[in-house]
């Protein structure tokens, strides 16, 4: 759970503006962007995701570096991605 996972913002959810649809390794998930209200991300921005929340905006090069780091650590990253894929924070029910 300590890992920061890079993702690319696809869209801000129109009915829930604190959530963004984010592409993480080719899979789209809702991520909370409430911690970035001082400098809100827009589609095309890269963010660092931690336990379902965007922690900071990063550039594409840093996103690639972060992904290389994650792939290098192996199992822990696979566990984290598997957990993220189970996550469904955008569904109200």
């Amino acid at each position: 759970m300590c890992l920061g996972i890079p993702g690319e913002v696809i869209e801000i959810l129109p009915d829930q503006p604190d959530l963004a649809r984010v592409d993480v390794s080719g899979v789209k998930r809702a991520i909370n962007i409430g911690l970035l209200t001082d400098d809100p991300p827009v589609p095309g921005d890269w963010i660092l995701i931690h336990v379902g929340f965007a922690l900071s905006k990063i550039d594409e090069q840093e996103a690639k570096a972060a992904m290389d780091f994650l792939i290098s650590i192996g199992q822990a990253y696979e566990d984290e991605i598997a957990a993220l894929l189970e996550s469904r924070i955008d569904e109200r029910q």
Partner: protein
Amino acid sequence: MRFVDEYRDAEKARALAAKIAALCEPGRHYKFMEVCGGHTHTIYKHGLEDYLPESVSLVHGPGCPVCVIPMGRVDDAIALAEQPDVIMTSFGDMMRVPGGRGSFFDSSAAGTDIRMVYSPLDALKVARQNPDKHVIFMAIGMETTAPSTAMTVLRAAAEGIENFSIFCNHVMIVPAIKAILDSPDLRLDGFIGPGHVSTVIGCRPYEFIASEYGKPIVTAGFEPLDILQSVYMLLQQLAEGRCEVENQYSRVVPWQGNTVALRAVGEVMELRPFFEWRGLGFISHSALQVRERYAAFDAERRFAIPGVRVADPKACQCGEVLKGVLKPWECKVFGTACTPEMPIGTCMVSSEGACAAYYNFGRFSRQRVREVTIEASRA
């Protein structure tokens, strides 16, 4: 392409290593602590110690939130899970952490309802879906994770959700660094500061390390070159007689941190007078608890918690590993009685733990070094 990058990186690493060696004063030994478990991973995975001169050693710090949870708190969480009509939710990392009465996995096998979640927001969703149950989120993590918990409590309050609370075990790395600096066990020359923690708190909270303790600290990224660059920056400060907070990871870490995140934590949580850290003992003002005005979301107020202190198993030396006094392989049970499959201590459970990182990566390069040394001595 990747191979070309790796080759270039190796070239850069060797160039940095030469600059590092040139900065070392002859006859002086340097000991730097990397506070963050993510950095420990990088160091072992890439065998970075092999790039450093013998006079520079890296020791591992307490920056793994799973590793520092004392056994008694695991038992308290299991006691909560055993309450009638309670669903306990937890990050996957916590599931195998042994308490005095076993782990979450053991408790779940014995019939409690403990579910793994990726985000505290997933825990809140479990609460929405199970209005007849009370859902508790096992909140662990350092400054990086506390804002997510705080935001989730704020969301629960805004939605008027009444069957959700958190068992707050958020700890803070800065008081732990201070405790290590006050401890007579270890003489350190500087710190490689945590990366993700610093995206939240920024660099200012580290200023006392330079001003009061006279030690340099460099906030670092997670790439192998980031770590080597940080070691270089630390040595440069020492060589020039400077003691400052420097930010090697400025491409991600803003100097002032994330003020929205800090405000959310400040709204929902306050400092505990003291909190027990595994291996480090009680450290004052080192953890967070839920504020009175959010008492409805505080499992410690809603339920009676046993609060029993449980001593670590005698064979376990996680404490010494967390303080950087022992290297993982120097622990008596490392790799024999204590393995990632059957852990005795927390440092072997978490992927961020120094023992698990060394078990998975480091031991191979160390074995190689040992083999080479043996060969050389035979020759």
